[in-house]
């Protein structure tokens, strides 16, 4: 089943409430999937800095003295620990070095995602516990997506939780199941993409990353996804400034959207949207099958 949510703010006055609003939306969707939950939030970016979200099964060991060890390895960084996750902030020019340095000094640490603004938190457990563990309610930002999982395609693990991030400031949540993911994964590996799991949704994320690397914008990549991905899907996707939604042509996975002057919101069910400000007067609709919806802060500006 799975429950997915997304919130893209148009009104910057709501930004301090993004984590709170998105957390409540996700918790409302708990009974669509109890296995794992995750949230990605596009927070404030700092000029010249980039950040990497990492996760560890042994945070007390892996995160101890991490800042010092990174500096000793020649990578000055700031480390902010949140439970099993930590955000490593580095000079933007050094972002590409983080993975290789971590591989040598902290080989067990997993990279959840990276970019100028995105932070990704996901763990096994219910949305309310995951949200509390990472204090997601206190986070501010411009847009975010969330997922609560009922596993079908691969194991219930932290890495198998959504959102999946396969490119800088990109992430995806998926409700459904793909049927051509093994073949597509092989093709994407040949193109140079790396995979962390056997999960079908990670393939969808990597597909979009690969297509956008070829010069497509998010909307264009979602359009070709309709031809190249086979199976059931409702995707909600975030990029640094964009937010997209697409459903497969059969469209059996539920989706409801709401738009006001202040935001665009997505929920697997209307229940997820009922606490949003001004929902009574929002335009509420079910996204059409095989139709790409996307919004971009840079285009709007």
């Amino acid at each position, binding site marked *: 089943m799975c429950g997915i949510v997304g919130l893209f703010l148009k009104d910057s006055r709501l930004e301090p409430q993004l984590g709170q609003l998105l957390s409540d939306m996700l918790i409302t969707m708990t009974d669509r999937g109890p296995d794992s939950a995750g949230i990605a939030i596009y927070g404030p970016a700092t000029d010249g800095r980039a950040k990497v979200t990492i996760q560890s099964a042994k945070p007390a060991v892996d995160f101890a003295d991490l800042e010092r060890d990174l500096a000793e390895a020649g990578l000055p960084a700031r480390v902010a620990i949140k439970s099993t996750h930590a955000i490593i902030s580095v000079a933007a020019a050094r972002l590409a070095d983080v993975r290789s340095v971590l591989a040598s000094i902290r080989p067990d640490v997993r990279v959840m995602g990276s970019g100028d603004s995105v932070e990704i938190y996901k763990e096994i457990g219910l949305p309310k516990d995951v949200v509390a563990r990472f204090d997601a309610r206190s986070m501010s930002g411009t847009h975010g997506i969330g997922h609560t999982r009922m596993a079908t395609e691969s194991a219930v693990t932290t890495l198998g939780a959504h959102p999946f991030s396969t490119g800088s400031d990109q992430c995806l949540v998926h409700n459904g199941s793909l049927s051509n993911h093994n073949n597509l994964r092989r093709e994407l590996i040949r193109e140079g993409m790396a995979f962390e799991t056997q999960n079908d949704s990670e393939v969808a994320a990597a597909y979009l990353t690969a297509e956008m690397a070829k010069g497509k914008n998010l909307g264009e990549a979602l359009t070709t996804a309709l031809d190249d991905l086979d199976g059931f899907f409702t995707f909600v996707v975030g990029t640094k400034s964009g937010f997209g939604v697409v459903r497969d042509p059969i469209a059996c996975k539920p989706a*409801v959207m709401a738009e006001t002057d202040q935001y665009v919101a997505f929920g697997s069910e*209307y*229940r*997820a*949207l009922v606490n949003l400000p001004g929902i009574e007067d929002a335009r509420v609709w079910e996204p059409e*099958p095989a139709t790409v919806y996307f919004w971009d802060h840079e285009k709007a500006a």
Partner: protein
Amino acid sequence: MDASVKRESLEAMRVFDLASTPLRELNSALHAIAPGTNDTNFEVVNPRGSHAVAVGIDQPVTVNVRGSVGYYCAGMNDGGTVTVHGSAGPGVAENMMSGTVVIEGDASQYAGATGRGGLLVIKGNAASRCGISMKGIDIVVHGSIGHMSAFMGQSGHLVVLGDAGDALGDSLYEAKLFVRGSVKSLGADCIEKEMRPEHLKKLAELLDRAGVKNVRPEEFKRYGSARKLYNFNIDNADAY
């Protein structure tokens, strides 16, 4: 209505606020109504997208739901009159037996699925699979419907004032489909059929019961089964 009568009718009405009352209390109260009871007027406030609101009604009660509902609202309705003053999630009035269900807003996928009787009126649009496997229900949609609607429809009527999506009436049996706007595509074995006087008469009756004004039955086209898929025929293998 004078003030005293109005007060009396208000007192007879039972209000369930789903923000403070569990859904099961509403549905239990609906199921506990004995035949012949006068206390049959229900108001549901703050549904907030709840699932299974007012399912399993088997008495001629009137239920007004003030807001939008989630999955399976008014499912299995047998004789009740349920009005949703908002939109409905998937499977509204699924397997209705008799009675009337009115959705003032839009309905999500498989509205009226497998319905055996009664009238479902959707004043907005309905999404995909509207009336899938309908078995006697009448459905009137003031707006448009999505793809695969009336798939395997066996009997009953589907009336659409707007447009129909892809594969209308795929693998249709004897449900009768009336569409006023365009049909994106017809499903396997569904064809346009002649509108005869008895169809115009039935359509006029359904439009009237669904509160449709200023629309003439002559504006619709009728679609039905070509009856080529009833039995397996090797020449039709490509259509399966």
